């Protein structure tokens, strides 16, 4: 193994244009959503929480968590460290998005249900998603050897993906209150066009933010492993 010799552009700090663009996009969405989108008549201004809450929820579950699960399966198959790093990064960025969902959800819930928290299927699933990702991060932190850490977390990632539908189903059976996703119902496109534009631009901006954060987090994982092997070699 060659240890030294190659020059180290990695040691120099770098700009991250993608992250910059994402931050600007999110800022623009904030402006549009808060200042230039009409207030929903029945729910009042609090309805605007939808734009950030629903985007974060969708991205956390169907992008971050799904990416973690897929990379976990692929890792066990291909044993490529890159896949493990993607899974790790997706989990951590997903945790951030899930945290936003859990913080904004009750604020919206208080205004439409009159309660901060309800044990409905989607809210509870999100809460458990959060617990699972926290457990995933704890597990990663508790395993020293890199190969073992990757295998263990891949196993947990896959099992967690199998669990979420069960939790959703059980809680759904328990009771459900959550407003049905009005956007995705083909029969009644009940959201006015202006709000739809805001919603989809919010969704795109947060997706961009997710991609930028994922990339930044992946870079950190790569750097960390590199530093670890260098330190190992340096004794």
């Amino acid at each position: 193994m060659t240890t030294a010799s190659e020059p180290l552009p990695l040691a120099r700090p770098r700009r991250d244009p993608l992250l910059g663009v994402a931050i600007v996009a999110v800022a623009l969405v904030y402006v549009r959503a808060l200042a230039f989108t009409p207030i929903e008549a029945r729910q009042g201004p609090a309805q605007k929480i939808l734009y950030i809450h629903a985007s974060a929820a969708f991205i956390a579950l169907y992008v971050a968590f799904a990416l973690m699960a897929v990379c976990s399966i692929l890792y066990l198959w291909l044993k490529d460290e890159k896949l493990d790093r993607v899974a790790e990064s997706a989990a951590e960025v997903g945790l951030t998005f899930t945290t936003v969902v859990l913080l904004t959800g009750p604020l919206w819930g208080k205004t439409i249900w009159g309660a901060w928290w309800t044990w409905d299927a989607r809210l509870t699933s999100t809460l458990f998603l959060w617990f699972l990702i926290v457990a995933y991060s704890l597990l990663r932190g508790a395993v020293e050897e890199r190969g073992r850490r990757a295998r263990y977390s891949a196993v947990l990632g896959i099992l967690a993906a199998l669990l979420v539908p069960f939790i959703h189903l059980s809680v759904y059976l328990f009771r459900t209150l959550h407003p049905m996703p009005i956007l995705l119902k083909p029969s009644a496109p009940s959201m006015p066009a202006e709000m739809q534009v805001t919603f989809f631009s919010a969704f795109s901006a947060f997706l961009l933010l997710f991609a930028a954060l994922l990339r930044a987090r992946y870079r950190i994982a790569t750097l960390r492993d590199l530093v670890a092997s260098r330190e190992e070699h340096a004794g």
Partner: protein
Amino acid sequence: MTPDNAGFATAAYTLAALVYGAYIVSLKVRERRLRERLARLESPARPASNRPAGA
């Protein structure tokens, strides 16, 4: 009748911005620390020897 709950919207948008912002800052800090460590690992090793030190 439209309820006046603008405070909730403001709170939610602020919280979200804080969480995302804090995460971005933490990423930046972690990345900078790692790069510094990497730089430290490299710089003293280079003039010292032409054979890399092993474990």
